[in-house]
């Protein structure tokens, strides 16, 4: 129950999922996991199961919607798509993320200068 770490992870995961759905349109969980894997390569070690908790949370906030459908290999699957509110949220969060990563990057650079 290490809440701190999971919180950061979840936040980023939420953002990644929103962005994925925004870019690729409706997808099922497996598809989202594949896309994230593809983009992140080997940099991010992801427990793919957490995608589903994230999806559930996003659903509860009303940022994505879910619908049962048929997958490309003719199996029953749940398809997720981003909602209007989700789009708005994505924009806010993306800006936020950039700001934070920018700050963190600068902070890290300062640390690095002193060390060298």
């Amino acid at each position: 129950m290490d809440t701190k770490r999971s919180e950061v992870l979840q936040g980023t995961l939420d953002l990644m999922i929103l962005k994925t759905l925004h870019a690729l349109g409706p997808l099922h969980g497996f598809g989202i996991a594949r896309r994230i894997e593809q983009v992140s390569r080997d940099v991010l070690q992801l427990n793919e199961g957490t995608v589903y908790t994230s999806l559930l949370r996003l659903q509860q906030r009303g940022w994505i919607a879910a619908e049962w459908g048929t997958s490309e290999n003719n199996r029953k699957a749940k398809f997720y798509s981003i909602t209007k509110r989700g789009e708005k949220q994505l924009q806010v969060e993306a800006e936020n993320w950039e700001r934070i990563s920018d700050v963190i990057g600068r902070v890290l650079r300062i640390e690095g200068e002193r060390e060298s």
Partner: protein
Amino acid sequence: MSSRREFTLRAVAGKLLGFLRGRQHDSEFDEEMQEHLQRLAERFVARGMPEEEAAAAARRQFGNLTLLQEDRRELQTFLFFEALWRDLRFSLRTILKSPGFTATAVLTLALGIGANTTIFSWIHSVLLNPLPGAGQPERVMELESLAPSGEWVPTSYLDFHDFRDHLKLVESMSLAQPMALAVGDDVRVERVWGETVSGNFFDVLRVQPDIGRFFSGVERDDAQNAHPVAVISHSFWHSHYNESASAIGAVLRVNRTPYTIIGVAPKEFHGSMAGLSFDLWVPATMYGQLTATGTWMLEDRKNRMFRVLARLAPGATLGQARSELASLAGFMAKADADTNEGMSATLLPVWKSHYGIQGSLLAPLTILFGASGVVLLIVCANIANLLLVRAADRSKEFGIRVALGASPIRLVRQLSTEVLMLAVLGSAAGLLIASWLSGSLRWLLPLTEAPRLQSGGLDSGVLLFTAALAVAIAALASIGPALHATRDNVTETLKAGGRNGTSGTQSNRLRSLLATCEVALAVTALIGAGLFVKSFYRVKSIQPGFDRNQVAIARFNLSAVNFDAQQADAFCKHLRERLERQPGVTAVTYADYVPLSLGEGSWEDLQVEGYVPGRSENMKIYRNLVAPGYFTLMKIPLIEGRDFTMQDDSSHPPVMIVTREFVRRFIPSSSVLNRKVYGWGKWFTIVGVVQDSKIHRLTENTRPYFYVPIRQIYRPETDLAFYVRTLGSVNEAMQSMRRESQGVDAMVPASGVMPLNEWIAGSLFGQRIAASLLSVLAAIAFVLASIGLYGVVAYTVAQRTQEFGIRLSLGAQPRDVLRLIVKQGLRFALAGTAMGVGLTLLLARSLKDFLVNMSADDPLIFTGTAVFVIVLALTAAAIPARRAMRVDPMVALKYE
């Protein structure tokens, strides 16, 4: 922004939905993930991995399924309810797992809660809710007239009139006087308790009729004996008219006169006296007719015989109304000086009224409630102790749970859920006890005739009280253990790993404190009970001044059958003759008063020839109207002069017999006989002097008293009591009284037939109740405290087994170990006793008023109790100590 704790409306909705559809969600979510796993595995297989390995790799990549399910559940349900449900189930399992502990706890709780609920239900029906069915009953007050001596007295009809017409801070005012009535025709007469009331009685109490109507405008006027109408109670309607509407307008014979029923009171209304049920309400203006006394009783300002209820005007406070009344009464005392000189009046809340049962129950109920509270505290301490012991046993369990991430709050919640569950079980059992005792209020009343008691039973108020009690107990009892459980250091606990050498000094200290408090409370309860028991025996041993053994009494209400004085006299003469012929009967007499009745009896304003009363000296002297042979039968010694004879009747000059105290007060000089005394509008001649005896209660100081021949003064409205002294069995005498009175006149029902002994026991009921119930409560308190003390000592011994083993193996003698433990027990006992004695001394001041002929700090009882408690505490400690003495060092050291 995306905190987990965010609790938006949508999230709540999602949770609610999830909560409702929990299982379906579980399976959908599961399906989705299984699908994902499968596709992952398929991918691995496609890359050339063996199937088993692929499945494992898929699971690795996917992560912990169970954890995900947990996360999902947290998102989709109200964790709180789930946790509560889990706690409940877990508590139930834990509780069932240790049946011994559970049984002890529940039984203890049941005792405490049962006692408290029962006593509260008494208090509720007598003191807290004295006027059930009335609207805004808290605004209704009792008006009591005050005699010059400050004693309360009933109010006369004329005084009532003046109060009613002139008080501005009293909205409305009504008479209400309880009265036994003979209802029915010549074939079947039954005794029914009713109230004679003024026409606005139901308005004052704000009661609406169930059906029919209450007294109309005309029926409320002052015309005497003009309105023979009656309102009946719901239960009378049910039993006599089967709740039929045709009861309205039906004719009911009351005291041989036809009355028309005009209405039925609502079910919850029982009349105006707390705890008592009345069945009939008739206008007070019918009083003369009901008692066959004509009209004078309502026209004589001196004839004080009514109870008065007053509803305060809106906005008026009791204090304001009281002072307005006092000034009015003061004015009347001057204006009607011939009758009211020195009189006053006051208002009291109904529950403080001197009429009815609450007057005599207030003190015993207060004491009992206090004592049952003490028992409850001991119960709490005991439960807390049991929990602490268990918490120590479970400290490992708690330690592990904390280590696995359970928050302290969860543990506390778990504990209090457990206690609450125990408390609920205990309450259920306690309520069972209480409902079984629900009619028990009548135990508190003497064996005299009275309207039937309305059993308050377990209504919502009482149930609420019990529920609050359960919660309070759960809170009180779990504070200690909860603090203890959360303060426990995880690593320490786990390291200790069952090594009990010196564990938990803190919890030991808490337990010791609890045990000490228990002893203190038990000591308080015991000393209290001891004081009351001693006081009771003191009172019981007081000689009443007459011989109460081998005498049976029976009471007759001749006015209820509309006898006039002559008929009444004939009835008495015949009954006396018949009873005298019964085998074994040595003496028969009758009088209008039975000594040691709780009622105050009657008095008369006297003037004694040659005696000048001091200013505002109370010359209202209590008296008894007796038939010839009274003193012989009661074995009251005649000191001087003669007894009454049958010739002392209304056609002969009035005579009087006075007591020694009467003589001492009023005729200190020379000859007493033939001195004249003025009362009832004529001069009486003193013909005899008798020894003093107790009149109202055994504890009273000797007062002047006098006797007058019943045949000279008799009025049909007075009570009549027959006395029979027998050599044989008193029961037989009682039977013959019932039988012979029926033989003389079947219309006259005998009531209150009982041995005189029992009647007198009734006069002691307050003391007896206090003494016996307090003894029971004290015994419970003491047993519980002993169990608590024993538990603590026994547990410490078990904990220190290893230590004792070491001591013994290092050469300590068994008796050293014994001394060690007994010393500990003694410490609790001494500290507890000291605390208890201190507490009792603090309380003693308030107990003083209830004790007779003794002080509240009776040294014998204090020392006796202290010694008793210490000895028993030592015994409680000695049992585990003996066990410790026999510890085999080898076994103890290996014990792990």
